[in-house]
């Protein structure tokens, strides 16, 4: 099963809408509640990353009976040094974004903590693709 959601860069008022939709789907599929929580936390972080840093993005959710695989692709500045971005507290968010309560530098580390497999591919000035996989059992 597959679902697609658009993510609008810069529109913080809408940040989290796609992850919330995925949560509703997972609840209907009777996925374990603690697992849903992990997945949604990871998705929310990734969704906010797109809103905060990129111009536009897409969330593609592929569901099977034993895993969920979410691919978030954005058109944006890209990440020059992924290993640096994975460090807790490291952030390139602008002061305006931080004022809104985002950009604490916990995004990618938090995603890694809350999914089973994380792959990040990024090209500077083109965009980033984040692929998260979580197994149901």
């Amino acid at each position, binding site marked *: *099963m597959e679902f697609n959601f658009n993510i609008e860069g810069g529109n913080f008022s809408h940040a*989290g809408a796609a992850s*919330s939709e995925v949560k509703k789907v997972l609840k209907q599929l009777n996925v374990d509640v603690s697992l849903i929580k992990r997945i949604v936390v990871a998705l929310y972080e990734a969704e906010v990353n797109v809103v905060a840093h990129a111009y536009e993005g897409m969330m593609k959710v592929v569901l099977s*009976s034993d895993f969920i695989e979410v691919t978030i692709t954005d058109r944006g500045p890209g990440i020059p040094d992924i290993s640096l971005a994975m460090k807790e507290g490291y952030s390139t968010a602008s002061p305006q974004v931080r004022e809104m309560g985002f950009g604490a530098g916990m995004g990618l580390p938090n995603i890694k903590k809350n999914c089973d497999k994380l792959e990040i591919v990024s090209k500077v000035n083109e965009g980033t693709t984040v692929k998260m996989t979580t197994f149901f059992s």
Partner: protein
Amino acid sequence: MDPFYHALQISPKACIGCTHCMTVCPTNAIRICDGLATINEAACVDCGMCLKNCSQHAIFVEQDDFNKIFSFKHRIILIPTVVFGQFSDDVTEEQIFAELHAMGITHVIETDQATGVLTEAIQEYMEKNYFRRPFISAFCPAIVRLIQVRFPSMLSHVIPLKQALDLSALYARKKFIDQGVSEEDIGVFYVTPCAAKIAAIKSPVGEEKSPVDGVINMDFIYNKVQMGITQHRDKPLTPVPEQTYLSPEAIAWTLSEGEVSRFNGRCLAIDEIHNVIDILEKLEDEEISEIDFIELRACDHSCVGGALTINNRFLSIERLRKRMKNNAKNKRSVPDDILQYKSYLKQHSLLSGKVLPRSIEKLDENILVAMAKMEKINRIMNFIPKIDCGACGSPSCRALAQDVVQGKAKLNQCVFIQKVLMRDNLMTPDESIELSERTWGKERFRK
């Protein structure tokens, strides 16, 4: 699992199947069938939204027979402060207490007397279990049930303590037993502002049995007190010895922010069930975090907005605020012997059982079956109109699609689909009427 007890009932004589209740129900528990609203008992949380929105007064709250109190020698009534908010300023508290005695009650106890002890118990629980933040108050039984059915992942945050209602009932029993009264002579009754509290007493969540013997609806007591005042107008007033003058904080407990004002840290107070759902969604997604304590109440402006209240909720608040001011100013002595029972009540404050999830969201236990059903729902959603008109008897197009895949409804209940089928000569007008009769009842189409 035992089904929920529900106090909300629909009168088949008065219900016209108008859909008002169906569209406001926060758990999509209502469908129209055969011209009548029907409640899905697994989904209903007794919030009372349906009752408040029923234009035909067809939804009512079943109550115990008042005369049941007379089967006990000691007839104790527990009243929330909201009771005082129901009366106009010319009715005094002395009159209310006296009238409660005149109707056969032998002892009146204000439930909110127990809120001081409860505040301490909550505080201690939060300190011991700080890792469970954010703490969600279990004050409102409709909210606890809402979390069970719609937000089971948040259950571990709910504070598993008895509420002021239960603690004051325990206090009442213990007090009389300590005076040498035998257990079977004590009858404890609660005056309720809402349906949810009745459900909480009849089938408590996280408890085997409630310490309350019966429930009396607030509108019933209001009428009885008013009637008594009119009839006893010329008689001298006999003051009631146990009359209480609660502290302003205790009076405020059932109003919005009544709980949060007692705690430090980042606290939020939310009232009205749809507002509560919004916040719970955000909490569940961890869109908001770093919160210590959340007070959640199903009714608009909390208990003064309960389905069984009589007075306008803003006027109730006004009267209760006056009561707070008076009690603060007069500093009259309170017969506050509840403090003698503080350690006893705290010992018994923890719920004996667990608050278990009762998810209504899942399409099937088996994920493969659930996925197949979801795909079917998505296919149906492509060709139904998505205008949520309710003419099929379901609250929304999506709800109809779900009912169809669960075998509870037929897709051709949708009037839009019926029109398409008739255009394509796949359905006759008679067949269409017959289908609609199943939803709206035969009578509707005879007029």
